[in-house]
């Protein structure tokens, strides 16, 4: 017969149309700034000044990309540094955070409340910028060292708390039965708990990875050598230079500051595209884990 099992009612159809329309417009509005960035990065600099930013460039020019890739070793090196720091950092951070989360959710761990409080306590206070800098540079000798980019982000207390909440929803009986069979705690963790926690690990992993990918603050403070700069730091340097030239330099009567060349708008946008490009391409692949993770949490309740 080829007929559907049930018919959509009229109200549902109307509702669907409105819902789709609304979401589509919202999605387009979110996409708009990014489209402007891409189009601006391939526009000729003088037409930006004359006509402003347009969705369709008035005059196309790949000059900005030419300048950015003019010295490809720097950009490629920065990519390499960022990828390295992100992968190593995310992996280690996930591992450490989930280990701590597992230990804290085990009900037979006598001191778990004390440790939970201890972790939480560290998020309330901070010694300030200068003591941290002195600690890193003078005592831990982490200046111009990749460790300085990886270590500060290794243990996020809130990440650990989220993982812990998820893990406590895994039935204790699994752990108990494994113990009866003679497995060590670490084996239980690696072979039973981690596979079951895949949704939360992927979600938190993505957050951590984004943080590592986007970080420029750590490199600003601790990295001096220019062959160790991550990608975001480049972008930050350009934008802050533009800010500086516009505000301090223009006001100051020091004529030398006016000799510093202002990086062009299109160059700034090109750098943005280069820095965020990979993430945009990676996202669709990870999306299915996100959705799974959200749905998992809903059913469990």
């Amino acid at each position: 017969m080829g007929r559907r099992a049930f018919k959509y009612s009229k109200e549902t159809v109307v509702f669907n149309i409105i819902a789709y329309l609304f979401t589509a417009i919202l999605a387009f509005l979110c996409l708009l700034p990014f489209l402007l960035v891409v189009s601006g990065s391939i526009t000729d600099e003088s037409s930006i000044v004359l006509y402003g930013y347009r969705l369709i460039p008035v005059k196309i020019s790949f000059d900005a990309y030419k300048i950015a890739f003019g010295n490809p070793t720097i950009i490629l090196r920065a990519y390499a540094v960022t990828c390295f720091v992100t992968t190593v950092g995310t992996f280690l951070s996930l591992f450490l955070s989930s280990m701590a989360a597992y230990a804290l959710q085990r009900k037979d761990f006598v001191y778990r409340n004390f440790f939970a409080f201890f972790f939480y306590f560290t998020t309330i206070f901070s010694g300030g910028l200068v003591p941290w800098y002195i600690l890193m540079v003078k005592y831990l000798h982490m200046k111009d060292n990749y460790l300085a980019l990886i270590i500060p982000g290794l243990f996020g207390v809130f990440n650990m708390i989220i993982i812990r909440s998820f893990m406590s929803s895994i039935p204790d009986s699994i752990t108990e039965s494994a113990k009866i069979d003679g497995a060590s705690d670490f084996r239980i963790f690696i072979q039973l708990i981690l596979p079951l926690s895949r949704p939360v690990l992927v979600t938190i992993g993505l957050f951590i990875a984004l943080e590592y990918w986007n970080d420029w603050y750590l490199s600003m403070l601790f990295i001096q050598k220019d062959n160790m700069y991550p990608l975001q730091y480049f972008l930050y340097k350009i934008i802050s230079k533009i800010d500086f030239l516009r505000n301090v330099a223009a006001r100051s009567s020091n004529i030398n500051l006016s000799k510093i060349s202002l990086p062009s708008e299109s160059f700034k946008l090109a750098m943005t595209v280069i820095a965020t490009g990979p993430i945009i391409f990676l996202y669709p692949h990870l999306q299915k884990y996100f959705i799974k993770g959200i749905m998992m949490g809903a059913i469990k309740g």
Partner: protein
Amino acid sequence: MRNLYRKISIVIAVVMTFALFITGCGQSTQQSDQANATTNAVTSSGPSEPSGTPEQPDDGIDTSKYVVLKAYMLGDKQEDHDLVWGEINKGLKEKINATVEVNLIGWGEYEEKYPLVFASGEDFDLIYTASWAKYLDQAIKGAFLALTEDMLKKYANRVYEGVPEAGWKQAKVNGKIYMVPTNNSGNPSYAIFIRGDLREKYGLPEIQSLEDYEKFLEAVSQNEKGIFPYGDNNANNYWLLTTVMLNQPNNWRYIDCGGYDMMHYVYTDPDSKPFFRYDKPEYLEYLKKVAEWKKKGYWSNSSLTEKTDRIAMFSVGKSASAIDHIGKASQIYNDWKNNHPEWKLEIYDSSFGGKLPGGTYLGDGMAIRATSKNPERALMAIDYLTWEKDINDLVRHGIRGRHYDLTPDGKKISLPDASKYTSGYSMWNFDVLPQIESADAHPKYSEINSSQLSRKTSHPLDAFALNTENIKTEYAACSNLFAEYQAILELGFSNDIEKDLNDFITKIYAAGFDKIVKEIERQAAEYIAEYNK
């Protein structure tokens, strides 16, 4: 039992929230306390060795031990930085048995990194400093070594002779000199840039006065509908129209109040004290004139929110004239040679032959860290980098034959590799007078530049900067008001000038401006007394 638990948990929750607030407030003082605790002020007097003849720096100075001096400068690392400094260090090693290792702090980060580098107790010898780059802050904290006249005469005599007396006076903080200024107090005047081809098209005279400039603006506004006669922006709270049309003719200059034109002084009168210009009749007259120009459409209606650099607007042809630092002329001149050969760049002295303010010698300089282990060698390095010709040429221009070359009459031409070593980092304190002319500068540039330099005056308040420590709240409130009203009034956007001006004055006095006035007067008087000692 349950009730007790409840009460305890509520108490703990309240205490925790308190802790949060207290941390938030305590953060900033913690930082500065640490900074003060970890820096120590070391003032050292000159060494006890007998000084030889001032002209030969090596006389009587022991340079047998090889020393590596660590220096911090601001800016971007140039592509050929290592190459050029390699050559510089070769020369330095020969002459004073020392080399300089340069580390760079980027433009956007020097606000955070500069104090950090001192507070963290890092070991270095030299650092670039300037009035706009934290000189006063750090000098007060004792981060820099106090330089005595003896030390300067012995180790850096050429520098000592090279900087005029006003420069050394300006560099004094609490009676001691903490930095080596440059001998060039900068060109504090500006130039009017116009499209010469448009001027010729309408048969207008060269711009020798404000009336001539007005005629040009009128002609463009009437006849060229696609271009704005004048282009400006509100990106940095500083409109050169005011400087050219109001301050310059009356010989007024702003007192450095951190970027807001709160008070002014008359720079041609050595006894001039700070005054408030906003209730003077000249200011009102100026506002009316500017509003008139705006009504005639001389500049865009979006100037208040415009962020584009005014020179960028001018060089792509969005505006027909601009007022800016004369140093930018070469950039446009060369750009138009390639892209718009039919446009002619003409520049005119915006001071129209009047006297110019003196400017500060502290715009660029080098300081020595108070805890440096080799202060004497560091001073010698400054001396050689500034006055030893072959070393200084390397610092200023790069390697001859790779980055630049000289024409037979001594002008500088840029070679294709010139972009690999530019003056885009803070080597400017070594960029002393006399300057080498560039062969591709605008033909009128050196004429106007030297004419302006010859008309410079000198006033004790030239390098004075307001310390806002005691008036923080009033300053914050008033600076917001200045930022809001000045733009509207001085770019001609006000519809009722008298009303807006009175509003402005009433509001700032309501926000405590008289306290600021008293503070400025007091600090200025103290500063002048110190300066004249």
